[in-house]
């Protein structure tokens, strides 16, 4: 686990470097194309752009993501059960600080994590998730998100995600410029043929780089989804919780009308199941997540709850020869036994009401229950200081 975090940090650094190289290459090619001989200035501009965007994403990224998802922060009183589960998983994962908890009004059961390090992080869940998950399932989903924080995936999504975005924007600008404009070519002494070759190579680089950047980024993103699943199984000691949660999400996706599977395109890859591509069954180079079906099958195929068990199940189901996760002595090389289910019985109606109440409470609505059983939700904009129950006429102070 901890070796894994270290390995992830190194890999993230290498990947960031790789993306920076592609970015510089693209900036160089574009500048060279626009004004021959100005390639280095292009690199400089690309570098400055990258630094600015990285700083913005590092400091403001988490709040931007949460704002894009219309997420509202909740307190413990708003949903004690959810809060307790997040606390439980914070302890199980050994995070130094509990992530902030947010709720999103969305019928699709889903969740995402964001943040810049384990001390500054947030987990957001949709009302749809709270409506249909029992305790073990919710715990599995939260553990998966917690793993993204613990494994530093959230930082990776922020920094590398932004770079892929910048590369795409630059290439896009170039293609537009290429289509609509004529470049100002100063008198050049190079032979026409050599120039043509450089030109073609440059164009190829510019057009291909966003695609390459995206493919690399997504391959790693998919791998990290598997890793987060494996970590969730280890934290909860109960792979079936997450498996069953994913199954419920998959069932929702397959039966839901497409209008319900919406999300902000930037945010979509960060969810536990990508709402925009969820209906597709097979993995492709451009999938942000492995297929939900495979994820469920691997979790269900685990003989225990450790990484060793996950590796074994992964190899059997995906049909690959090599381990997904490198396991070392300190992380534990054996299997870990699975705990028994919590056996909590849940009433769907109660869960559904709780989920919506959480949303109201997050908007500072006040709740008053009348002696006749009627429940008022009083908006924070309510001005008066008393309210009359429409059913029994009792007067309540607000």
């Amino acid at each position, binding site marked *: 686990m901890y070796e894994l975090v270290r390995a992830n940090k190194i890999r993230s650094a290498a990947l960031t470097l790789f993306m920076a190289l592609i970015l510089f290459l693209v900036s160089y090619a574009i500048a060279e194309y626009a004004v021959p001989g100005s390639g280095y200035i292009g690199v400089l501009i690309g570098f400055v752009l990258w630094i600015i965007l990285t700083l913005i994403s590092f400091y403001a990224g988490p709040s931007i993501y949460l704002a894009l998802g219309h997420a509202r922060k909740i307190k413990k009183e708003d949903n004690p059960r959810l809060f307790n589960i997040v606390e439980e998983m914070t302890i199980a994962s050994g995070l130094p600080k509990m992530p902030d908890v947010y709720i999103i009004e969305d019928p699709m059961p889903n969740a995402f994590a964001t943040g810049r390090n384990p001390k500054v992080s947030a987990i957001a869940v949709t009302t749809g998730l709270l409506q249909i998950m029992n305790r073990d399932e919710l715990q599995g989903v939260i553990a998966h998100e917690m793993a993204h924080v613990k494994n530093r995936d959230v930082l990776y999504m922020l920094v590398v995600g932004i770079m892929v975005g910048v590369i795409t924007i630059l290439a896009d600008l170039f293609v537009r410029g290429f289509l609509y404009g004529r470049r100002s070519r100063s008198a050049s002494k190079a032979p026409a043929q050599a120039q043509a070759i450089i030109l073609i190579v440059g164009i190829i680089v510019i057009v291909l780089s966003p695609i390459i950047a995206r493919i690399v980024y997504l391959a790693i993103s998919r791998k990290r989804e598997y890793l987060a699943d494996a970590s969730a199984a280890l934290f909860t000691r109960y792979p079936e919780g997450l498996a069953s949660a994913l199954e419920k999400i998959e069932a929702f996706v397959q039966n839901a009308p497409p209008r319900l599977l919406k999300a902000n395109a930037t945010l979509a890859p960060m969810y536990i199941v990508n709402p925009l591509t969820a209906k597709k069954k097979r993995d492709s180079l451009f999938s942000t997540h492995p297929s939900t079906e495979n994820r469920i099958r691997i979790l269900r195929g685990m003989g225990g709850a450790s990484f060793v068990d996950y590796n074994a199940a992964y190899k059997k189901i995906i049909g690959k020869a090599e381990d997904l996760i490198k396991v070392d002595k*300190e992380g534990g090389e054996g299997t870990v036994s699975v705990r028994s289910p919590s056996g909590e019985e849940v009433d769907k109606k109660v869960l559904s009401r709780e989920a919506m109440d959480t949303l109201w409470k997050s908007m500072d609505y006040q709740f008053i229950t009348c002696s006749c059983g009627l429940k008022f939700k009083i908006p924070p904009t309510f001005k008066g200081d008393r309210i009359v129950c429409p059913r029994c006429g009792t007067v309540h102070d607000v």
Partner: protein
Amino acid sequence: MNPVWIIVIVVALLVLFVIFMFNRLVRLRNEVTNAWAQIDVQLKRRHDLIPNLIETVRGYMKHERETLEAVTEARTRAMNAKDISEKIEAEKGLMGTLIRLFAVAENYPDLKASTNFLALQEELASTENKISFARQYYNDTVYRYNTATQVFPANIIAGIFGFKAGTFFTVENEAERAAPKVSF
């Protein structure tokens, strides 16, 4: 190059290596201490919840004085436990009395419908989970620390500076481990 320099460089590298190893062991040992403290935090939280629970339940369960007293007594015993093994025993006893209390509560539909009681039930059930997750994390950390002190060459440094192996928090009784998880 002067052979003296080579020796100096080798020694410097060796010293750096030892410092690195030593710091790593210290960090792991601190993690073990922190993980243990987490268990304590959760145990204390359970103790803190009990007076509130008794207060809520008392009004409904007029004829269950013995059950309630047993919980209070077990709590006092758990809070006064001195060494670790005594503590584990006392906490187990407290747990038993709580299970009985919640079993008896089944006979009082009014109590079961009370929001206050439901909230406390959620808190106690979650505290129970937190205790077992804290224990799980503690054991994982001890495993990591112990392995780190046993592998070569860190074992030499651990030996010199007296890093002792940590103790696992285990449930001695196998049957107890196999027993179904308690839900209130």
